[in-house]
């Protein structure tokens, strides 16, 4: 009897919406269908011999290759990665600015919509896919990687720049215009200086992303550390590959630390 009064005192369970159940059911179906439709080779991965061969494969990585000529080569690839990311970001900013002017609606409404569409397409194709396609045009090497970074980043920066320009207070430019300044001068001396700090910080942020992207971009043959990794892995030179992976991790850690330090210094 006492128990039943306790049960009555408990609040009723919240009502469950039918659509929530349907969404959950849909997600479950998606997961089941995914596993069912993929030709996954679990047996090849969890048998004793497969585990042995995997362990052998991984043991081949230690110790990393540390001969001086190889380290110098890795350092060269590291510099190539940095250069690719820097030039790619710079090109993207140069291409992104005129696109942003059109995207901010300065050339009319039709141009704005068209430019935004172009920017969306540039942006939704990842760097690596750009690199694979551009390899056909530019040949193997860091040039294709640089252009791939530039293409994707131009889409991102163009969009961000356009938003930054649209958000600027128009009053200053209008004042210059009504007082007889030419359109270009009014833009350069009134609107651009207001948007510039934000545009610079977007560019720096994308550069940080691009360093990370440039490190792996080479696996399709577009230069930098990635190309070296791909090369040594396909020759099964595991110690060399291990050195390259470590170089990648160090590069990313350094970029993270630098960006963290810079952000703290700037915001304080």
């Amino acid at each position, binding site marked *: 009897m006492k128990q039943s009064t306790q049960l009555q005192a408990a609040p009723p369970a919240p009502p469950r919406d039918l*659509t*929530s159940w349907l*969404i959950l059911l849909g997600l479950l179906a*998606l*997961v089941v*269908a*995914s*596993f069912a*439709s*993929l*030709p*996954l*080779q*679990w047996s*090849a*991965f969890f048998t004793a011999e497969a585990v042995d*061969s*995997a362990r052998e*494969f991984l043991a081949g990585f230690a110790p990393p290759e540390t001969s001086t000529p190889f380290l110098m080569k890795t350092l060269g690839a590291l*510099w*190539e990665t*940095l*250069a*690719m990311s*820097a*030039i*790619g970001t710079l090109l993207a900013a140069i291409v992104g600015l005129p696109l942003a002017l059109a995207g901010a609606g300065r050339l009319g409404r039709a141009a704005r919509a068209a430019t935004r569409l172009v920017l969306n*397409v540039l942006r*939704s*194709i*990842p760097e*690596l*896919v750009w690199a*694979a*396609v551009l*390899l*056909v*045009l*530019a*040949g193997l*090497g*860091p*040039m294709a*990687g*640089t252009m791939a970074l530039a293409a994707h980043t131009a889409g991102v920066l163009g969009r961000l720049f356009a938003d930054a320009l649209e958000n600027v207070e128009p009053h200053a430019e209008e004042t210059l215009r009504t007082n*007889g300044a*030419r359109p270009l001068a009014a833009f350069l001396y009134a609107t651009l200086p207001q948007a510039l700090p934000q545009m610079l910080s977007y560019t720096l942020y994308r550069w940080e992303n691009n360093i*990370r992207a440039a*490190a*792996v971009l080479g*696996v*399709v043959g577009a*230069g930098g550390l990635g190309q070296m*990794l*791909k090369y040594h*892995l396909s020759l099964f030179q595991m110690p060399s590959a291990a050195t390259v992976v470590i170089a*990648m*991790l160090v590069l*990313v*850690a350094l970029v993270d630390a630098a960006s963290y330090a810079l952000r703290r210094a700037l915001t304080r």
Partner: protein
Amino acid sequence: MKDQAVLHRDPAWRTRVTWAAIFIVLLYPLLAGAEFKPWLLFDAQSLRAAGMFLLDFLVPATDPEFLAMVLRETWQTVAIATAGLTLALLVAIPATFVITERLSISRLGTGRVHPFAALVRQGLRWILMILRSVPELVWALLFVRIVGLGPTAGVLAIALSYSGMLAKVYAEILESSDAHATDVLLANGSGRLPALLYGALPDSSAELVSYTVYRWECAIRGSAVMGFVGAGGLGQRLDESTKMMAGGEVATMLIMFVLLVAAADLVSKLLRRRLG
């Protein structure tokens, strides 16, 4: 000629010129490092190859057999992302349970975590950090060497790098929720699991779900890209067609890719609004 009456000199020209000079000096070694030689694009031979590719590119391939193949590969890309994320969750959820310091029982009363528990927690955090700092593409490259070409490598690569990422962010979300409910439950003798389920989870479940859905969207993009190293899905076919210079096929697959990303973006937005 009224508006040309007074032309003022730019008052900041000295700093502008200095910065431009420094910039150019720094630019040269970077251009050399990236082997940036745009004129190479315009020599006769590469121009002819590029021209053929681009002409072909303007007419997307549309024969039904090819389209069916593209659809099949697109589904495989989604399936790799979903399966990889599911496996990642199987690792990430228990890992979150271990590394969330909020759920520490030895911390109760003294405020100090037992040294052994702290060691286990820190060790697992380091393992997760290694899992997520190796880029997923590099994981895929390694797994292609171990298990061979095909979607298994892609699923494993996503599972490993995303488990590291998800566990870290889950723990951060749980730690940033209101500590009161969890602390009261633990102090009154509840176990760690009920404390998680009834204390921390209700407060942060929306954020957890929305982050997971966002990561699923990222995984779809990642799995499409991982095909380029041979891990199955749309990327692998795109890579093959590019190498054969079949511009029309590349165009069709790029359009499919853009549509896939847009669709994932839309579904993720809807789900997050519904569940978040």
